[in-house]
């Protein structure tokens, strides 16, 4: 006697055998429609697609709505929700302690451009191997709607008052102070955000992604320059991005003149398709000019503004051993008796 049991349909897994579920975090507690949730979803998808080992990733954040989001993706990764504006320091220490970890940080515009501006700029200058995402909505959400330092001049708060002080442009700062991967995108632009996240994973040094991520509760009204409708109406992609991971065969021939190929440090490729303008993302001066012009004309310019795939990182500069410092054994970290004797002799 035999019964045939139909095996359940095979679960969909990625190249390391994990399901997309293994990349999810706990349920979000952010507002419905918050742009930050879309960013979390794109992180889940990108890391799943790339087959990143979740327990080899460390997530970092500071304080604010954005900084809550690491709890909502990559639940199998170590996470660290630190103090306001000072996540870069924590991430720097952790990623130097264990250079084999892939680090991803989420910050907000208050966390990055106000209280954390100093740490952000020093992070840039160090070119730490790290993905630094700014979920930028121009407003303080958790404290109910005050302007942040990225709010545009004239942009209106929910109360009707207009912002008077000029904004910091986090991409301009990142370009000027040393980031080697600088991008701006929109939380509603799935394709571009996903391509940028994957490219950031492949990038060797610091990748800064400024994501315009509207706040549905405090900054999504008429008169705000960070609302969904404003960004949709004013967004202009500087190019079209296609990411080809290192483990995939590049079969498509590049058509000369329309697509630029950038080889990332890990062997992945970025296929950059030109749109209206002729733009080279390896030219820092061109990037600064393009952003400045867009800002002056009210355009929300998005895309990969700049990439330098091979610039030495902070880890390179420190000339550390290959093994993580965190797990070096005593035989390596404690010099011998003869060394102490030698030092004592010098002091006699």
């Amino acid at each position: 006697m035999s019964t045939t049991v139909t095996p359940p349909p095979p679960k969909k897994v990625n190249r390391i055998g994990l399901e997309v579920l293994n990349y999810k975090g706990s349920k979000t507690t952010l507002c419905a429609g918050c742009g930050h949730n879309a960013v979390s979803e794109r992180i889940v998808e990108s890391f799943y697609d790339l087959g990143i080992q979740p327990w080899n990733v460390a997530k970092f954040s500071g304080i604010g709505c954005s900084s809550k989001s690491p709890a909502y993706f990559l639940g199998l990764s170590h996470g660290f929700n630190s103090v306001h504006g000072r996540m870069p320091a924590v991430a720097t220490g952790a990623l130097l302690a264990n250079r084999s970890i892939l680090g991803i940080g989420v910050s907000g515009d208050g966390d990055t451009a106000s209280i954390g501006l100093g740490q952000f700029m020093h992070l840039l200058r160090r070119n730490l191997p790290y993905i630094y995402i700014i979920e930028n909505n121009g407003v303080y959400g958790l404290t109910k709607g005050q302007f942040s330092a990225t709010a545009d001049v004239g942009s209106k708060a929910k109360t009707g008052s207009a912002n008077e002080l000029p904004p910091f442009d986090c991409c301009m700062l990142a370009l000027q102070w040393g980031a080697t991967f600088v991008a701006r995108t929109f939380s509603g632009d799935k394709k571009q955000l996903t391509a940028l996240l994957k490219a950031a994973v492949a990038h060797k040094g610091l990748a800064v992604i400024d994501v315009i991520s509207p706040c549905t509760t405090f900054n999504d009204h008429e008169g705000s320059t960070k609302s969904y409708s404003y960004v949709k109406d004013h967004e202009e992609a500087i190019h079209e991005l296609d990411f080809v991971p290192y483990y995939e065969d590049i079969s498509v021939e590049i058509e000369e003149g329309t697509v630029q190929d950038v080889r990332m440090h890990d062997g992945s490729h970025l296929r950059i398709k030109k749109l209206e303008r002729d733009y080279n993302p390896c030219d820092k001066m061109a990037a600064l000019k393009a952003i400045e012009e867009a800002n002056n004309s009210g355009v929300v310019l998005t895309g990969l503004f700049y990439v330098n795939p091979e610039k030495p990182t902070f880890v390179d500069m420190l000339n550390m051993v290959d093994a993580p410092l965190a797990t070096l054994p005593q035989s390596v970290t404690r010099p011998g008796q003869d060394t102490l004797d030698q030092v004592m002799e010098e002091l006699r």
Partner: protein
Amino acid sequence: MSTTEVSAVSSLSAKNPKAIVNDFCIQVATANGSGSQTANNVMMRGIFQMGIPVSGKNMFPSNIQGLPTWFTIRASKHGYISRKREVDFLVAMNPETAREDVMKLEPGAAVVYDEPLKLSELRSDLHFYPVPFDKLVGPVCPEAKLRKLVKNMIYDGIVAWVLSIEMEEIHKALFRQFGPKKKKAADLNWGACQAGYEYAAKTFTKTDPYRVERMNATAGKIIIEGNQAAALGCVFAGVTFISWYPITPSSSLVEYTIGYLKRFRHDNVSGKATYAVVQAEDELAAVGMVLGAGWAGARSMTSSSGPGISLMSEFVGLGYYTELPGVIFDVQRVGPSTGLPTRTAQSDILSTALLSHGDTKHPLLFPASPEECFQLAMEAFELAEFFQTPVFVMLDLDLGMNSWMADPFAYPTKDIHRGKVLGKEDLERLGGFARYKDVDGDGVGYRTLPGTDHPQAAYFTRGSGHNEKAQYSEREDDYVNNMDRLKRKFETIRTKLPAPVVELKEKANVGIIAFGSSHYAVEECRDQLLAEHGVETSYLRLRAYPFSDEVRKFIDAHDHVYVIEQNRDAQMLGLMRLDFDPPEIAKLRSIRYYGGLPLDARTLSEEFIRQEGM
């Protein structure tokens, strides 16, 4: 013309005063940046090499060049190495302070001085040795721009003659100081030194009583600064991550550490570093990196002083609440605010013990000697990792930056332990873990490190409220349980810290409690009280906060107890008030010094006698 002046001087030179051997204090007064440090070290080492216990203290301004600096060298056949308040032998090189320095001397002191300063006109009860430094330096130093520096070495020669310091030892100390690579500079300086010696020999008649005589009390000893000793402690503790921001008087602790790491902590084959050092943008970033590195499993440390420690406050609270290891050295200086940045104090005790908002408290270690700077630095890393919390090592400028005679350090006998860290195999066996669960009843949970190759390894670290599983929680019971466990952990820490060093005297009704750099002055003070007043005292030297039960027992065993500390507000006594019961508190009295100079025994014994009504 005053007759008393003539008679005073002639009486000093006529009689050969009773020699005072190996028991005096030399003070060299110069201007900051004049390059006198080398000459002073050579003089100190020359005496040390003759077997005589010495200590060297630099009293310097917060300035690069020009303001007055005093270096004191104490020689003591009794082995006292704290500051001696009275100066017996002055080398007056700084016109700015020379007159005041001379007027402050006790009768009978000796003065070597730059002849144009005409100091001998000021007093008739001192021994003066005028030296025409500018005339002497020309022939031995043809290069004019070096003369300012080389001039200092001339006073070494003069003082060597007056005090009978053996020139062979000066020669040895000088060439040791310059090292084999700077032989030309050493030769030049040695020439100046000899010129000084020869000038003194042919010009002066010795009238003062001070001199050195060879002893055998320094054999095997070393001379080292506390910061340097702590640096060695870090290196032998296996430190792997350092982040810091420069600040006086702490900078040299990290700089010495970097120096030793560069020499001793590179892979033999690849030449690569087994450590990372980051000079941070400020102290907030420095301690943030240290905690991040500690979280990820590095042995991490930073070093700072009062203003920097204040800036670290928020992060240290995070470290306490999320339970991250990290060692923080506080080389204390005089506050509040910028205060006196180059003067010494023990005035960060209370603020550091309770650093940060909310209910926070931290273990503090108090080394008193270079040996303890070395040992307790190592111990701090063990404690930080076992208890998963920031641990402070409290030095001060006197201990950290001055030169101390010490016994050579013993190689650590205990292996390095990294605390309760679960690895892949543990997780296989356990099937998971709860980060903040008190499994062992000591308040200390088990942690995992990021990068551990296991799907169950991860947990979420957060400064917001959390439950045993490290999940976000605002529940009353979760919060209270967690805070109570942290308190339980602190009580475990209390029992595992370096014990106080207790010296009980059977006949003593009065006890003394002190800590840190006060130690040597207290030892000498107790000898003074016994010798001069017949008062015997017991002594407990604190080595850690929170206080162990031995402190309570010590207080209980005496009629009353003086707590000696270098701050205005009796901060350590304040901490004791928080910890002890009314019967103990009622017995506590306070002796404080907060003038910024290294503590001296005489100040303590005078205050003790005053309060005792003797």
